[in-house]
């Protein structure tokens, strides 16, 4: 077995999906004094504080993580079509769909008073929405070519948006209902879709959940996919009322 050290993101997923107290404890112990949890590799800082905040128990450690989430922001270049910031995968880079979804979810559910960052995240999702609804990794178009949405990132954005921005959400749910079966080969995509379809009361939710149940009989490809499958099958996840 090729062993590897624990990492913040996957540990946070395990804490959230399986209620693992050991994972939660590891996150708290590994938290930096500035409140962040993540990985630093050379000059690259992969901040997972938003997911960490959602996974940590209520208390000082969670509050420190939330403080950090406020400080982390995407960085924009000269592209005039990209004006809102969101949250990046790594410090000092563009904001992208998934990290922005985690940032928005953490702020919206755990510290909704941070209205500026929430407003920016909502604006970013409006700005990056694909034509017809939904989101991919975070680009609406490249050099004049419209890019299509993905199932996994559309689901992630919808779960973060919750009941705000109804028009955006309606288009996203409709897109997800149209497309989730086209990516049914992937556990991560299908489990994410099942969670979002369930939250928004879609009639597709049951079928998506059944597909996840079938897939999990053969195991899961990695910790993150396994966590999403657990969210889907338990109808749980940090997007539910806390």
């Amino acid at each position, binding site marked *: 077995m*090729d*062993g*590897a050290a624990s*990492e913040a*993101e*996957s540990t946070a997923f395990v804490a959230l999906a399986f209620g693992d107290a050991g994972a939660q404890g590891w996150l708290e112990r590994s938290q930096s004094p500035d409140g962040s949890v993540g*990985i630093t*590799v*050379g*000059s*690259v800082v*992969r901040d997972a504080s938003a997911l960490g905040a959602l996974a940590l128990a209520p208390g000082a450690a969670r509050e420190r993580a939330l403080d950090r989430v406020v400080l982390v922001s995407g*960085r924009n270049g000269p592209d005039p079509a990209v004006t809102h910031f969101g949250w*990046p*995968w*790594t410090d*000092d*880079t*563009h904001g*992208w769909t*998934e*990290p922005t979804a985690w940032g928005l979810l953490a702020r919206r559910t755990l510290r909704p008073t941070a209205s500026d960052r929430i407003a920016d995240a909502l604006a970013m999702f409006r700005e990056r929405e694909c034509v017809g609804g939904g989101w*991919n*990794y975070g680009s609406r178009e*490249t*050099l004049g*070519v419209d*890019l*299509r949405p*993905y*199932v*996994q*990132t559309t689901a992630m954005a919808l779960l973060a948006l919750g009941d705000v921005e109804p028009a955006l959400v309606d288009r996203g749910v409709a897109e997800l209902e149209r497309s989730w079966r086209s*990516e049914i*080969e*992937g*556990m*991560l*995509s299908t489990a994410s879709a099942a969670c979002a379809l369930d939250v928004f009361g879609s009639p597709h939710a049951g079928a998506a959940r059944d597909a996840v149940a079938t897939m999990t009989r053969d195991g899961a*490809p*990695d*910790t*993150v*996919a396994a966590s999403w499958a657990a969210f889907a099958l338990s109808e749980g996840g940090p997007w539910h009322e806390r």
Partner: protein
Amino acid sequence: MAREVDPVHPRNDHDPKVSRRDFIGRAAVATAAVVGAAVVGGAIVRTRGEEQLWDEDAFRPPGQARVAVVPRTSYTGNLTGVVLDGLRAIGADVSGARVLLKPNLVEYDPGSVINTDPRLVAATVEAVRRLGGASVSVAEGPGHRRDTTYVMRASGLMEALHNVDAQFIDLNVAPATPVGLRSRYTPLGTLWIPHAVRDADVVISMPKMKTHHWAGVTLSLKNCFGCLPGRVYGWPKNALHWVGIDNAIVDVAGAVRPSYAIIDGIVGMEGNGPIDGTPKQMGILVFGDDPVAADTTAATMMGFDPTRVTYLAEAARFLGQGDPEQILQVGEDPSAHVSPFQPAPGTETVVSAGSF
């Protein structure tokens, strides 16, 4: 004083299998010793073409390279035999080696030609086995999609690998280790390199022959981006773009150090590559014992001037051979197979004024 020359470069190696691992292993040890105090933070001030941005003891000066251009118009039929011939032509030594194939698998879009064709990857698995490889696995960390299983299945790669009983390693989630860079084109300082890449005796970079809207072309050097795990660098690996994509290509390729290249030019992509371009029937495979030489040859056949492809020109200073006079063409004459690609928008400056 005699200079210590790193023996890693496969082109001149007597035993590339051991030396490649040693190189990355030493870098990993060095990183462990200085982690936290590396060259992080501020930008490196430099003038390309003047300042030396690599450690001399880590990179042997480029010598003569061998490249084989092999005509092939279809992915069906005896593709394994064609790959065998190509690998033999460049003198690829995989006997007893743990071999890792790194195809290009970014995304899936029905009807497009974004990825290295799965049939070529499967054929290469079989060819490496016939050449005596101790083991062969296929590894990639898709750059746009977090759901690698979806991309694997939808693209047909999973089925193709199943048919040849080959293991796939998702580099986005596989165990990884920090490795200190021996070149300094970026301020990255250290990269996370998956153990599967670190521990391979031979890495074969297998890109699709494509245009790229920022870098001009994407071939075996750019393909190395997929070795870095998305769980650190994200989807997309945007940190590599913010430090300058050309700089990042050189540093990442200098860390991964692919031993050989097999470029899928049977059908390439032109125009708005690497994702939204259009298929280009090129009808060739390019094999190289030096990825810089293979990319230089391929770029030229695409109608581009490799000296105008910024990262390729820099890589040719220390990573491999970019001088056509020093690239021994052991297959068909590449000049007979030049077929200009429509450049990606904004990269017209890489178009060649001449040919070979």
